[in-house]
């Protein structure tokens, strides 16, 4: 059983890591085709993508959209979670259900709905509109995480602060936010990641200024090239770097 376990672990990791390894290896491919045989290492595709104006702009756009939409989703989710945790109203269950609902709907449907609504209103597709879509998908996530993080203990603390005469803003800023800091961090991180990697909403709701996944998609459609591998590898390595840094800083704090 023990041997079987380790064999399974190795097999599973081979399956999980295979595409990433192949992606990275062939980003160094010294020919136009990112398939075997491997023809020796080169960095030219990295040079090419770093010099690609459209790609770099898309990267920045993605960062901005992800940052802003995650922040908005976080604030809205935080307010709603604290509000709903405060008192039990007859409509609480219904409101909670409404806030969670977008999570059970495919992104494609959310995108299509927004596209049609904005078309009717005469609003042009843009990064702003994409950001709005991303808040729609991330709000339920932030809300759910934060709502779950508010336990009895937290509720009592909030109630005590109010009883002592703190204003609602003070309660949120000085009591709720610090108390929920880990959950807030996790929610923001997840929302950021989801927005950063989201394709279909950004695809349907942008025009010239596109996000990175959309730009990668049009790269993919316009020709086979290890440059696509290079973009993927670059995004991968940078994200993993950030994750590792976060992991080790948070990890250290915990062990203290």
């Amino acid at each position: 059983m023990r041997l079987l376990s380790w064999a399974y672990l190795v097999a599973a990791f081979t399956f999980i890591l295979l595409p990433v390894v192949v992606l990275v290896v062939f980003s160094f491919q010294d020919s136009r085709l990112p398939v075997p045989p491997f023809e020796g290492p080169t960095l030219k595709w990295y040079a090419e993508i770093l010099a690609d104006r459209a790609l770099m702009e898309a990267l920045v756009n993605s960062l901005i959209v992800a940052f802003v939409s995650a922040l908005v989703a976080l604030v809205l989710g935080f307010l709603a979670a604290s509000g709903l945790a405060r008192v039990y109203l007859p409509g609480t269950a219904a409101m909670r259900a409404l806030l969670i609902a977008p999570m059970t709907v495919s992104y494609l449907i959310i995108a299509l709905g927004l596209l049609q609504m904005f078309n009717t209103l005469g609003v042009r597709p843009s990064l702003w509109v994409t950001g709005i879509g991303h808040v729609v998908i991330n709000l339920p996530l932030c809300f759910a995480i934060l709502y779950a993080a508010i336990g009895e203990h937290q509720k009592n603390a909030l109630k005590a602060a109010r009883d002592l005469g703190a204003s609602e803003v003070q309660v949120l800023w000085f009591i709720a936010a610090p108390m929920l800091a880990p959950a807030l961090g996790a929610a923001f991180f997840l929302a950021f990641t989801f927005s950063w990697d989201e394709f279909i909403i950004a695809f349907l709701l942008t025009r010239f200024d596109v996000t990175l996944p959309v730009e990668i998609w049009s790269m993919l459609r316009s020709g086979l090239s290890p440059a696509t591998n290079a973009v993927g590898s670059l995004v991968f390595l940078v994200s993993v770097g950030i994750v590792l840094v976060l992991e080790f800083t948070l990890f250290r704090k915990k062990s203290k």
Partner: protein
Amino acid sequence: MIAPALLWTLVFFVVPFAAMVLMSLAHLEGREVVQGYALDNYLRIFTDPSLRKGIFVSLEITALVTVLSVLLAWPLAWIIASRVPPRWQRLVLLLAVLPFWTSYVVRSYSWALVLGEKGVVMNVLVGIGLLAEPVQIMATRAATVIGFTHFFVMLLTLTIYSNLIQLSPNYARAAEDLGAPKWKVIWLVILPLTLPGVMTGAFLTFVLCIGDYITPQILGGNNELTMPQLIMLQLGRRGDFPMASALSIVLMAIVTLAYLASARWLRMERV
């Protein structure tokens, strides 16, 4: 305090959805959208063989992917939670979800490179003599399923693992003390306790899988079309918003049915 979030959801989720319902009742005349109140689009979805088949293709792929992912992820999560020394668990888990951080579009593309006839997999299988010659995986349903399963195994491993480590080891110990063999402990004690985590993960898999456009588009070789592909075809090639809307609503109805079917095991607030 709840108002801003509610308002946001109303304006940018409920209203667009209502607009979409309205649009699904319209139809295309020449190239103009004409608003009407007919169920023709829905009727066509269920009578036109190509559109109807899309529903089945989507359901079959999604069901297969969901089951496969659970079957593959559960043992992995269990091994990480119970076999890997605790101090290494976080690292191993991190490794298990590493490909999350490649761009999602790129992930499918890498699978296309891996699974192609000249790809790594075929090279190895033919090289070690397991296959006499390459078989076609790329541009088949198998490729789509592999691409999907890869992603969802990672997702499910995470949700099942977090469920497993929350279980008190006492359950297993008690069963073992009573003389139950190891497999029986896993099957009768641990597995049922992880059911909520499994169901939540499975539902998420279902929703994300059935609504995804990229993976089947890149890996499926257009040999059959899923619902999202049909929707994008209506949008991208024809500008047929009414039909795209109707298809979306059918898609959403399917997800809702899946939700209702699994609702009693789900803890959506706790994903």
